[in-house]
């Protein structure tokens, strides 16, 4: 049934579906625009970076974050309605964490921003659970030989974020400057910071 629509592009078919649904009173065009805006608005890796910077500078916040990520990020104003629990997992000198959703593409959107295509790709989803060290090396993350790697496969209602290690030589930096160091990939685990 699909794939045989040489004349109509996907864009045309999407528009046609919207029109059909509006004609049937299922959707209104204006409402759809609002929802599109709402889906992405406020979703940014800057949010996750702020959480990390706070954890790096406030040991009690860090402890709360690791104990109950959902509640801790709410303290910073980040509410997330679409999933049940946020779990933050910390990298240490001997452990490194990396996140995946092998079954689809589950991801904490509000804290990390839109997910990159690679995160959604079969190549990443198939390989990171099987050979994480090699995958991390392809992302430029070289881990010491004894480092234990844990891969978190988001198979249910919990969403995961990595708390990367604070880089050396950053003692003098304020929270904003620290947040600026944190990349989206670090929050997924495919970068050190």
């Amino acid at each position, binding site marked *: 049934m699909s794939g045989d629509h040489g004349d109509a592009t996907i864009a045309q078919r999407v528009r046609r579906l919207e029109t059909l649904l509006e004609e049937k009173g299922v959707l209104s065009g204006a409402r759809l625009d609002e929802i599109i805006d709402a889906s992405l608005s406020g979703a940014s890796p800057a949010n996750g970076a702020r959480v990390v910077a706070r954890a790096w500078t406030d040991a009690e916040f860090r402890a709360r974050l690791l104990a109950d990520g959902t509640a801790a990020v709410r303290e910073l104003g980040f509410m997330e309605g679409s999933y049940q629990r946020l*779990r933050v997992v910390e990298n240490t000198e001997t452990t490194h964490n990396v996140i995946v959703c092998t079954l689809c593409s589950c991801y904490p959107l509000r804290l990390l921003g839109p997910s990159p295509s690679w995160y959604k790709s079969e190549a990443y989803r198939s390989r990171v659970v*099987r050979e994480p060290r090699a995958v991390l090396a392809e992302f430029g993350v070289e881990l010491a030989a004894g480092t234990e*790697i844990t891969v978190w496969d988001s198979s*249910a209602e919990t969403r995961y974020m990595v708390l990367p290690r604070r880089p050396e030589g950053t003692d003098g930096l304020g929270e904003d400057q620290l947040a600026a160091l944190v990349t989206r990939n670090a929050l997924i685990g495919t970068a050190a910071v």
Partner: protein
Amino acid sequence: MTDRFPPGTPVRTFPHDPPHHTRLPRYARGKRGVVVEPEGPAELADVSAQGRGDAPVEQIYAVRFAARDLWGEGDHHVVLDLWESYLEAYEEDAADER
């Protein structure tokens, strides 16, 4: 709700292979792991996907698997969030495959 599998419980995933939606990936079916902690109850995805509105609520557990137990090799671990009905307690003295 008392959790059937407290943290630290050795468990095995059922070798389940349903014809419907499920959130137990193939690579982790019939495998031994250890419960990390409960994740909070939710409607069982397998039934919720059928759209009748009658999905049972079950506890979900984060379960940690050694790569070696999943694929016979590897030194890393994989943690999956699994609904209670995907799991059974693993008894060390039960008949084992290897």
